[in-house]
């Protein structure tokens, strides 16, 4: 099995606020991420697909096709958007790294027809990221990406 990883970057704004909590609790739990007008990040997304290279093309999955899937499913939805208000898949969720990574997984998995989606790693900054993977599938990809 071979793993291929494609990296893309997108920029988006968000705010952490749970309407079920009081203003004071929101401030305590989320700190400056609760600032009312939101803030933004340059996100880096790494998508890893695993499979056997096709004997004719030598490819697990055509990177051009993966690039197009990422453009359609992630860039057009999230790049230069406000994640709380403009991405329906995140409606009602706090747009943390954990939740965004999971939403991206759920968007990508049904679209990848060759190979198997192995890991989605979303960096909010160089020092903070979330990994999403299927239990039991993650360790090899984690090492490949580390």
């Amino acid at each position, binding site marked *: 099995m071979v793993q291929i990883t494609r990296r893309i970057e997108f920029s988006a704004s968000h705010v952490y606020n749970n309407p079920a909590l009081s203003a004071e609790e929101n401030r305590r739990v989320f700190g400056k991420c609760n600032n009312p007008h939101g803030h933004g990040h340059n996100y880096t997304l790494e998508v890893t697909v695993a499979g056997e290279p096709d004997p004719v093309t030598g490819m697990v999955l055509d990177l051009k096709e993966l690039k197009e899937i990422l453009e359609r499913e992630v860039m057009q939805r999230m790049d230069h958007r406000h994640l709380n208000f403009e991405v329906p898949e995140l409606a009602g969720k706090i747009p*943390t790294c954990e939740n965004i990574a999971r939403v991206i997984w759920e968007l990508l998995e049904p679209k990848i027809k060759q190979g198997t989606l192995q890991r989605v790693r979303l960096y909010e900054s160089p020092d903070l990221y979330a990994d999403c*993977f299927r239990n039991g599938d993650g360790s090899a990809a984690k090492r490949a990406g580390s």
Partner: protein
Amino acid sequence: MSARASLGELKVELGRRYHFSASHRLHSEHLTEEENCRVFGKCNNPFGHGHNYVLEVSVSGKVDPATGMIANLSDLDGFVDHAVLQAFDHKSLNEDVAAFREKVPTTENLCIEIYNRLKGFSQAKLERVRIEETSNNSFEYAGDGIAEVPDASGATKERR
């Protein structure tokens, strides 16, 4: 999704990187001067040397629907700061960290020591620690049953 779901449930892990700078000297009292020199090379130079270490901590757990988080980042940061960074940053690992008075402060042993210091974090499960000693060398430990930093007498692995 339903057919794929049988492959295993979706899991989310949080990765957080921390930075600290410290000095160390690789030297074992169980080896002769010549053996120390041969095994540890320039890492055995008597006055030690330092690194800018990068510590990567991975935790897993249920994402709390109220916060969208596995663990509150400020709690994780505070725990790591208290348990590791305050004790290690701008310190001599050999002199200032009790565990390395007797044990060689290789980055392998450092991984084990830091894992043991962080495994008590109550809000999430510690999956692994990974340390970059330099941008070219990294070490990882996931608590594979070794509870203690091994005794210095076992430190015979050849270094750079």
